[in-house]
């Protein structure tokens, strides 16, 4: 079933990204995905940044409200990351979060330069110690796998 909503009424999602919100019993996940064409233009290699949350659901806070809060933090960091790696013609193509962690995947032709840039950035205080790895699969495949 399709429906439309104005971005100012709902969340302000970044341009160019598709959204996917998954809801099940005791489980919520949210993702932002760049479309396949835009990914190809950025590169064939993938860098993965995993950030565990260090903010937790407060007593009585509803899970859906909590997740909306996490989405806001993640989108703020997404903008910052994209700004920092823009000069490397690289871009976050998949942001995927649940209440435990937030994963940014970056499409690039220069994974080493991206990793160096990431390591030089301060970690926002809503996250615990991040992990950075490269992924051997290409971004388009990873995206496809993700949406299943």
């Amino acid at each position, binding site marked *: 079933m399709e*429906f439309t909503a104005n971005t100012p009424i709902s969340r302000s999602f970044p*341009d160019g990204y598709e959204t996917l919100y998954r809801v099940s019993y005791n489980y919520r996940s949210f993702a932002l995905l760049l479309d396949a064409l835009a990914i190809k233009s950025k590169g064939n290699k993938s860098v993965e940044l995993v950030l565990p949350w260090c903010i937790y659901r407060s007593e009585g806070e509803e899970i859906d409200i909590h997740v909306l809060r996490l989405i806001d933090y993640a989108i703020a960091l997404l903008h910052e990351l994209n700004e920092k790696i823009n000069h490397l013609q690289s871009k976050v193509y998949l942001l995927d979060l649940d209440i435990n962690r937030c994963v940014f995947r970056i499409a690039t032709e220069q994974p080493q330069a991206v990793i160096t840039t990431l390591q030089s950035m301060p970690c926002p205080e809503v996250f615990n110690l991040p992990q950075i790895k490269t992924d051997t699969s290409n971004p388009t495949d990873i995206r496809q796998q993700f949406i299943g």
Partner: protein
Amino acid sequence: MDSAYCIQSPGNNVLMPIEEEQFRELKRARKRLSSAYAIRHKFRLIKTNYALIANSLKSLGYSYLTELTSEQRQDIKNQVNANVSNYILSARTFTAQLKRHVQACLPQDRVEVNRLTRRMEIEYQRSFAYRFIDSLYDYISYYGISIHSVDVSGKLSLNNTDERVYEIKAYIERAYLGGPTDFRASVLKEMPARVELIELLDAYMESLGRIYDLACKITDEATEQSQLLLREFLNVFEGVNGTRADNLFVVHSIGDSPDKIYDSFPISMYSAQAEVYDNNP
């Protein structure tokens, strides 16, 4: 005690006597028409429940994009669940009694009823959606829930940069359907990990549509004849009494007093509805 038969207009106390044989004819026509209309009413129930599901699903999808209170969100979830349950129950009401309704229209004709039975068997054999919804009835009537998870996806609208187009998909998941005691084992076995609700209902509606069309086709002639018979009596009533034949009842009373009513049934409602159905097939 003597029986008396008449057509009565309770509103303005007008009464027209009829013969016993005419009473029987009217009663037969009324039985056929009520069955023929029941088929149509029930099919409309299903279609309307589908439209309600579509609406409440959209509200549910929207609810995950906005900061609602948990009570507000729960209300919307309850609505989706109620609408899906009503759909499944109304579908069962339709399929379970369809043969009986058709038989009531054609009491002499086993062949046509068998044709319908065969059609329903074919749909069951050919359509996973038909089998699945038939089995889901047991699950919903036992547990009272229907949907296990939803995905809400969205992208920027092509023609308006402020607007996003979202799509909500609701799933029934195999992992939650449980053991064979709660859900028909053979259908559970052929089921994928999850089934998307709207795809399922669309496929199911196609099967139901074919069954419904056949049921209408089989009963059309008997329905039309019964309508004509009824119309004749209504016309005579109007001619004799000079009043419109609105809200008339056929009454079988015993003894002299028309208050001692043995049997009574409405007829005008079938005529009025006949017009509605003729205009909106």
